[in-house]
């Protein structure tokens, strides 16, 4: 804190300070750079007390206007060009720990003081963090070297030269083949592609390989898996009940988008705002399920608004962390302590997302209804009829309603129940009442609603503004036998926004605690249009049929119309219960503004994200692609490119890649990926040397190729592939491969893990059913997250539980059996079988020492099994095998081979 300075102290130290300052000024050098030299000192030493949350003595260094504003003392702490008059500088030199800054901490080093002093002397020029500055076309280093394959290598070599390191030579063909296959498709290359490459001795061999692999449908599956982490994709809703969610079509959308190389700008636009595009296709609606992967709480008594709000906040946080590599979460409660984002700006950004119709509904509304078979024929027919006969707005309204059941109001929004209750439905018992607030009645002549009742002769009365207000409608409601049906009633002409009061009565209810009616939703609008036109009867019949038809549903984003508009408030200290002032959608001031003509909704937000002026989006993407290939991003903290993240190892390379991605490759992910894969940097062999271990153990300089443990998905998938079990089937509902009993123990629902049949047991891992509260065990063990929120980066660990999984998990034993069977097809001695198996795995001959070890394992196991044939029979689990003892020994070897370090790594 800045204490009021004592005069005596001030003068006694003033001399010293002037001396110190003069000493600095005598030796001028390059001007001080705020971003690289000043900001790191401020962040580390000052901003904890003089930043967003704490502003001791009224001094903050977070924003430029704050740093130069008067502090509590009445004077600014920084006077440009005058370090000797700047309190900031003076305080660094004092010796009394009560006065000297940093308060009660070690003083700054001489070097640090010199930097700050010179910076003030030079005018204290403020700067914006590199990641918030527009991506400019960077100059490519002027380097010529035989090693260089493309521009990427020039950036890498420039830095290696500076560090007096040399790059490694290109990895051998076999290693490169396996590495690039796993990176592009997440699988080992199939025999055809592998053989083509290994026999292709042209200069283009490697590039052809990359092209072949990118054309494989497995490419989309590999890269979708990455995006599933970011989208916190799961097949359940999370929280207590963790019930199932039908959202696999979003996963399939991702696979298809990657395979068709949907440009990244469109890829983002459709996920953020597909529903707001003109005449959105089913696929564009489904893309918006990106932000419907937020969790839902179905538990009794939970406040739907609380969890709706939680979902909206998660969308804000996920958009920032997944797409813009920025941890925006902090700003929910206070201005960012380190980065220039203000508290209000969080809520302005939230306002983009705050008007979607999802309300933590247990039914997941709104959903896209995708009619099947005959129902779809009816849908197409109604659609055509509406387009030909109704006014465009009405046609659009009813087509949208058939697809989404929107606009409608969830009945659980009813309140003030007397002899009734609110849960998934609004339930009224005899003479029970409740109300529904903020209903816009202007221009509404019909109410369409969905309800269920088991009681005859029920009457639903609707009163205006109070239970003693005018009775505007008396609706007879029939006994539906308990099933939910939709019905309509006409409405009198009433203007304005009102609270409606509902009362239910039936003379047939004996017990006052028996349920009379359950409402699911209400939709205030107008009758199905064009009654006078030919074909109306059949179109309206189809409409009614479709309302009751079963359909494939996918949760989607849909904005409220103006009747249902929801204002967005700032939450004081981040609490949704303390609502502050109202804000409208906008983006943080430190970044470029919304593009001209961008509407202030999610579509405008998507335009802003995909504008080439957005400094974060392209950098975040190329950084992530780099991380997938090299194991670490150019900025290691994928989650934070801001000032609290780690600095980029190669900032100009990051900018080059971001520039290329937007301008040269026109947002094509495949082209960006290919450019990196073709670099000499990527193709290096990955051996450590003593020098590299000492100078660059984490391979931040890229003097060698990547050697990284594979992901949970890659490990299981490649093992399925080499053991010939892998099913090539794509898309569809998630599957349940073998998992031990007792993993799922969900309270309150009978959901159970039902082993999938046939090839569905051996599908790629991204198709495995993902339950948030109990993810697939081997996924978790190999560092997959629980996907409760956006998984921005998986931290790789190396644990004994991983070893136990790949050694003993029955799934891995089944794979080892199948792999042994395939090795056993080779005629000849055991060495030949192992050799062949190893080549299937690694595309290269096995080293003699390794072969010896594995052969000995075979021989010692064989001896054991010859003495215990029963055990052999159990292990091979196949009665058709002539010699179970030999096969069992081979299964032991196969199991060992599938646990080798070089198999679990990309080399």
């Amino acid at each position, binding site marked *: 804190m800045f204490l009021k300075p004592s005069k005596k102290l001030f003068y006694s130290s003033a001399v010293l300070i002037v001396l110190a300052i003069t000493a600095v000024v005598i030796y001028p050098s390059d001007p001080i750079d705020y971003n690289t030299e000043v900001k790191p000192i401020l962040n580390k030493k000052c901003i904890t007390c003089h930043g967003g949350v704490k502003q001791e003595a009224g001094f903050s260094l977070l924003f430029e206007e704050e740093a130069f504003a008067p502090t509590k003392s009445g004077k600014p702490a920084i006077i440009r060009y005058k370090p000797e008059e700047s309190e900031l500088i003076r305080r660094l030199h004092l010796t009394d720990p009560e006065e000297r800054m940093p308060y009660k901490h070690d003083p700054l080093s001489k070097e640090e003081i010199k930097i700050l002093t010179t910076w003030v002397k030079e005018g204290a020029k403020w700067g914006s963090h590199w990641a918030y500055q527009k991506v400019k076309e960077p100059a490519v280093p002027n380097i010529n070297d035989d090693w260089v394959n493309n521009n990427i290598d020039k950036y890498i070599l420039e830095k290696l030269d500076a560090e007096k390191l040399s790059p490694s030579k290109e990895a051998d063909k076999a290693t490169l083949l396996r590495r690039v296959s796993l990176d592009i498709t997440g699988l080992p290359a199939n025999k055809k592609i592998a053989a083509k490459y290994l026999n292709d001795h042209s200069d283009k061999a490697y590039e052809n390989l990359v092209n072949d692999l990118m054309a494989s449908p497995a490419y989309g599956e590999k890269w979708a898996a990455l995006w599933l982490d970011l989208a916190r994709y799961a097949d359940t809703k999370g929280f207590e009940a963790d019930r199932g969610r039908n959202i696999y079509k979003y996963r399939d959308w991702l696979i298809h988008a990657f395979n068709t190389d949907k440009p990244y700008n469109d890829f983002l636009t459709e996920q953020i705002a597909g529903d707001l595009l003109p005449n959105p296709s089913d696929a564009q609606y489904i893309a918006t399920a990106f932000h419907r992967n937020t969790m839902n709480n179905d538990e*009794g008594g939970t406040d739907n608004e609380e969890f709706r709000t939680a979902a909206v906040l998660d969308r804000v946080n996920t958009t920032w962390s997944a797409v813009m590599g920025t941890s925006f979460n902090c700003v929910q409660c206070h201005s960012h302590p380190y980065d220039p984002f203000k508290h209000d700006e969080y809520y302005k950004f939230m306002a983009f997302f705050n008007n979607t119709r999802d309300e933590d509904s247990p039914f997941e509304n709104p959903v896209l209804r995708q009619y099947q078979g005959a129902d779809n024929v009816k849908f197409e027919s109604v659609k055509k009829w509406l387009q030909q006969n109704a006014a465009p707005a009405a046609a659009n309204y009813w087509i949208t309603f058939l697809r989404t059941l929107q606009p409608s109001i969830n009945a659980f929004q009813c309140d003030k129940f007397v*002899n009734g209750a609110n849960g998934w439905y609004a339930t009224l018992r005899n003479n029970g009442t409740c109300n529904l607030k903020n209903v816009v009645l202007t221009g509404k002549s019909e109410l369409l609603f969905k309800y269920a009742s088991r009681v005859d002769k029920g009457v639903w009365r609707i009163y205006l503004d109070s239970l003693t207000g005018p009775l505007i409608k008396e609706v007879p409601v029939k006994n539906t036998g308990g099933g939910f049906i939709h019905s309509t009633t006409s409405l009198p002409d009433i203007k304005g926004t009102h609270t409606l009061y509902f009362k239910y009565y039936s003379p047939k209810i004996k017990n006052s605690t028996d349920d009379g009616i359950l409402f699911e939703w209400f939709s205030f609008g107008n009758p199905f249009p064009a009654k006078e036109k030919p074909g109306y009867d059949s179109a309206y019949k189809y409409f009614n049929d479709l309302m009751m038809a079963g359909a494939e549903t996918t949760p989607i984003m849909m904005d409220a119309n103006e009747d249902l508009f929801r204002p967005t408030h700032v939450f004081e200290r981040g609490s949704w219960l303390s609502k502050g002032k109202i804000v409208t959608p906008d983006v943080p001031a430190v970044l470029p503004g919304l593009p001209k003509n961008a509407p202030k909704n999610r579509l405008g937000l998507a335009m802003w994200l995909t504008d080439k002026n957005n400094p974060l989006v392209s950098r975040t993407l190329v950084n992530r692609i780099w991380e997938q290939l090299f194991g670490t991003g150019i900025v290691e903290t994928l989650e*934070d490119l801001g000032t609290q993240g780690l600095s980029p190892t190669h900032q100009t390379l990051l900018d080059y890649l971001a520039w290329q991605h937007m301008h040269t490759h026109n947002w094509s992910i495949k082209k960006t990926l290919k450019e990196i894969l073709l670099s000499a940097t990527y193709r290096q062999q*990955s051996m450590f040397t003593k020098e590299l271990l000492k100078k660059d153990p984490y391979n931040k300089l890229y003097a060698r190729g990547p050697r990284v443990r594979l992901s949970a998905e890659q490990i299981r998938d490649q093992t399925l592939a080499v053991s010939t079990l892998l099913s090539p089937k794509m898309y569809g509902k998630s599957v349940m491969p073998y998992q031990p009993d007792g993993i799922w123990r*969900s309270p309150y629902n009978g959901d159970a893990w039902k082993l999938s049949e046939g090839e569905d047991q051996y599908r790629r891992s991204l198709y495995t059913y993902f339950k948030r509260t109990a993810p697939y065990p081997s996924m*978790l063990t190999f560092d997959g997250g629980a996907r409760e929120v956006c998984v921005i980066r998986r931290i790789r660990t190396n644990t004994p539980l991983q*070893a136990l*999984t790949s050694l003993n998990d029955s799934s891995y034993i089944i794979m080892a059996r199948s792999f042994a069977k395939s090795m056993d097809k080779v005629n000849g001695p055991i060495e030949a079988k192992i050799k062949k198996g190893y080549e299937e795995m690694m595309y290269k001959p096995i080293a003699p020492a390794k072969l010896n070890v594995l052969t000995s394992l075979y021989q010692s196991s064989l001896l054991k099994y010859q003495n215990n044939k029963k055990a052999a029979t159990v292990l091979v689990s196949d009665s058709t095998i002539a010699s179970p003892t030999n096969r069992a020994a081979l299964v032991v070897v196969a199991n060992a081979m599938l646990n*080798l370090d070089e198999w679990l790594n990309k080399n």
Partner: protein
Amino acid sequence: MTQKELHNQRLVREAQKAVMQQHTRRHFIKESAMGLGALALGNLLGGCSTGSNNVFDATNPLAPKAAPFLGKAKSVIYLHMAGAPSQLEMFSYKPELAKLDGQDCPPSLLNGKKFAFIRGVPKMLGPQASFNRYGESGIWVSENLPHLSTVIDDVAVLQAVTTDQFNHAPAQLLMHTGTPRLGRPSMGSWVTYGLGTENKNLPGFVVLTSGGNNPDAGKSVWGSGFLPSVYQGVQCRSEGDPVLFIKDPAGMDRDIRKASIDAINKVNEESYTEYQDPETLSRISQYELAYKMQISVPGVMDISTEPDYIHEMYGTKPGESCFANNVLLARKLVEKGVRFVQLFDWGWDTHGDSAGNAVDIGLKNKCRKIDRPITALLQDLKQRGLLDETLVVWGSEFGRTPMQENRDGKTMPFKGRDHHGEAFSMWMAGGGIKGGTTYGETDEIGYNIVSGKVETFDVQATILNQLGFDHEKFTYESQGRNFRLTDLSGKVIHDIIA
């Protein structure tokens, strides 16, 4: 030397040993020319830094580490009764409530309150158990806990714990991870991250569940959140393999498994020669550890070898899946050096919708099932000299209302109580806790707190304190922010510390 001094000396020795091991390791690393830079060792020696430097050595993440200051407890056994037991039939003696039994709840208790299931005006429900004072401390305990009342002088009862969550899953998350939402590390993960574990043949953080269900919040209550996944709780199971995949595959015996791990490691040594990747060395040692776990875990997890008097004491039945067995296992595990043992028992959600969920029937049965084993645990730890260094915590996610539940405004078939977060009871024992104390007070019907309020964060701060951590300084940086278990709150409850 007093018991306490002996204990302190042991802790100092342990810390020194940890430091020495790190030195040795450092030496080894230099010898094997792997370079120091590959490993984040610096911080391990100084304990947890107060800055933002995350302390994580990927090659040996569970190595024992010294806490920043000398904690009294070395390990924790946390007994969580999922579903929320009624404090009014266990520890919270409310004679005035008996007088109100059957009367309409006054509106003052209902205005502005939100309940999970109570609707309209419920009736008050008097205590469904009688109470007496026990021990020298004279703490009130109900007839439902006849065994525990005999050791109540070892226990510090918190009578006024509060939470702002009234649904199970978020309340459990708040208690164990410091937030009602998913995604943060659990207490056990924090502790194993900070202290590592002493037995390298066993996981550092073990979870045992009983009652037929996992807790409502699922595995997230023992998840590692943003901490590396190696710190997540390892669920040891009472059926099937005690640790997933710990058993050799059918038809592959221990000798063959040993031979195959040896073979894997020999081939991996070849790979190491080729690539010089330090991670390969780490993998070799993890495969060795996996094998050691295969040997030691089933033994540790087998309670049948315990003597008869122990089974008598705990009421254990080897071969069954029950809370008592888990309690005995917990003792065995901390004895073997496991850092954090977390027990969840399912079935305490006494709404009154069935006999099993009635506070006068089901609750008594549940109490009977935990009373003897928990008492035995405290006695057994004491007789082994382990109680001083083992912190035992008993509690739940919230308590229950003094009103009788009237779900959806209807009369329930049995006597039950709804969720109540305003005030409930927990207790701690051992690990430097002052036995025979009560802390906090609620009003005469147990509805609101009068004094000594304890928030979930205070419970966490106290547990960390007993282990040697200042909860405000024990942080991990994630997404640009330093997180701590207690978020932005938490006060150590000094009144219950010896």
